[in-house]
């Protein structure tokens, strides 16, 4: 495990008396691709701006490489930001934009020229030196913004929804390009997005946030396969979230039906949240199922059919490769290890979960 590069300890921030971040603790390792993921308004940008130095936290400290930088202005921090709306300097050519940080550091002309070439090459825009900003497409402008940041060889690159304004195809291309860049440059990326797919594709570590609280930190696999609570499960991919009653170890009651499962240690007759991914629900013949229901909605999604089955008063979301026509009477079957059991929110910072599900 590489060492911790940035440590956020007990960070709190409020705007106009409204608490936006409440006692946030987070560390970021060297060379890590860390993504802050959460719904709009949950405080992702605020967290990033605190790391970048554009906001000062009301409480708490930011430790960078062993040094407290809480009060250091942005121009003295060893990190660079790629802004959501690119924020290129409209009165400068592309070369001048890229050279801005280097000129401030009084680098020699040959060094700067080499760096510009190198950076344009890295973002696949060779020969664009003297072009105008206005003559570039959104994707190209974003790549220039990245080039402008990385020529300064920051230890950390902060990216605030850098692909937000691009169309789907371009987003996907840029995602791979960012991963390539990160591996080539060996710098730490702190990435903000509200797109869970983007987060799953690109990150080493995902931090799921809601209403200023961190819900879960983990690898993409952890977050997807073992969400710690209903909010995370709901936010990362689609899921069926149901109220359940843990009868005893390895047995849970959902919609008045007892399901065997693999979870233990929740006690007896404890109310819990149950999460079942749509691809984990099997549609079988009515007599084979644990529940019976009727297909009420059917949408073709390319890879699979998105089927909704009404059973015991709950609309189950099911992804199947087989088509079950509207109105078909079907049985529902779930393997024990595909049932995720999680505690209902109790403590203060878990309240953020309830209000969103």
């Amino acid at each position, binding site marked *: 495990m590489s060492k911790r590069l940035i440590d956020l300890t007990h960070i709190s921030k409020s705007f106009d008396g409204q608490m936006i971040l409440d006692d946030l603790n987070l560390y970021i390792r060297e060379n890590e691709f860390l993504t802050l993921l959460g719904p709009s308004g949950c405080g992702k940008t605020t967290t990033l701006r605190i790391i*970048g130095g*554009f906001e000062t936290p009301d409480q708490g400290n930011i430790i960078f490489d062993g040094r407290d930088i809480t009060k250091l*202005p*942005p*121009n*003295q921090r060893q990190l*660079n*930001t790629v*802004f*959501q*709306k690119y*924020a*290129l*300097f*409209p*009165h*400068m*050519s592309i070369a*001048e934009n890229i*050279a*801005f*940080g280097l*000129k*401030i*550091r009084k680098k020699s002309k040959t060094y700067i020229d080499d760096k510009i070439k190198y950076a344009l090459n890295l973002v696949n825009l060779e020969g664009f030196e003297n072009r105008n900003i206005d003559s570039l497409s959104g994707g190209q402008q974003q790549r220039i913004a990245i080039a*402008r*940041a990385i020529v*300064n060889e920051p230890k950390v690159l902060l990216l605030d929804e850098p692909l937000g304004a691009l169309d789907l195809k371009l987003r996907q291309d840029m995602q791979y390009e960012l991963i390539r860049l990160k591996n080539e440059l060996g710098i730490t990326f702190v990435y903000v997005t509200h797109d869970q797919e983007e987060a799953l594709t690109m990150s080493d570590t995902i931090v799921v946030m809601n209403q200023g609280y961190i819900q879960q930190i983990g690898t993409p696999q952890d977050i997807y396969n073992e969400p710690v609570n209903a909010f995370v499960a709901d936010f990362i991919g689609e899921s069926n979230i149901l109220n359940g009653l843990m009868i005893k170890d390895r047995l849970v009651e959902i919609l008045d039906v007892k399901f065997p499962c693999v979870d233990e240690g929740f006690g007896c007759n404890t109310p819990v949240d149950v999460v079942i991914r749509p691809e984990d629900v099997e549609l079988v013949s009515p007599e084979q199922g644990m529940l019976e229901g009727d297909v009420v909605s059917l949408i073709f999604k390319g890879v699979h059919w998105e089927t909704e089955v009404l059973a015991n008063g709950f609309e189950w979301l099911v992804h199947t490769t087989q088509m079950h026509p509207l109105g078909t009477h079907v049985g529902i079957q779930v393997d024990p290890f595909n049932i995720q059991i999680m505690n209902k929110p109790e403590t203060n910072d878990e309240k953020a979960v309830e209000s969103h599900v």
Partner: protein
Amino acid sequence: MCNLKRQLLAGPYVLWMAGFILLPVIMILYYAFTTTGGDFTFLNVSSITFSVHLKALTLSFKLALICTVICLALSYPLAMILNNMKAKSQGFVVFIFILPMWMNFMLRILAWRMLLSNNGVINSLLDTLGLPGIDILNTPTAVVFCMVYDFLPFMILPIYNSMARIQADIIEAARDLGAGNLTIFFKIIVPLTMSGVISGIIMVFVPALTSFAVSDLLGGGKVLLIGNVIEQAFMQEYNWNLGSGLSFVLMIFVIASMALMNSRGEENGAGVW
């Protein structure tokens, strides 16, 4: 069909332009290059080299320049302060600045005449405070003072506009890349407000150069600007030919300075470093 309709719609404007812009210019050109008898001559135009005319033209240039420089020096910091205020108060302050522009131009000049006169409000106030009075009425100082007062909004508004259009994240990006306040000011804010500064300069310099009302009312006949000379030629000497000749020269100067400013603006837009 559609095209024809559109052309018809433009009709009134074409008429307006022909009647009130093109025709007067043609008439000025005609009078400028003819004698009273209607013969072709350069005398009206070349009479600008008469010492009295040259002196008036130089003084006009000098006062217009001083006025523009003062306006610029006042407006830039003001626009910056304004731009840093809360959005709500910004609108109010801009309104305060525009307010005097709704009052008649002549009335404002006359008001200053009252305020500045020897036993006017300002001097009585200074007197009661035991301070020495100011005696600037009927001097170039009073003329410049009043021109600055009159034309200041025309400088502030375009500069403020161009400043307000600078996105906050551009400034943050510069700071992020290591720029301190001075670098941000000279490499980002100044170049990005240059278009506003240029239009401000043109909007102050041109009317200041051609004005005659201010010098008439506050100069007490002692401050003779080229505008006053032209006015006299038309209104007192009824010499339309001389007046047109001098107007023609002034027009050339105005167009030349505007062209100069515009080309400077384009230069400044690009190579900042």
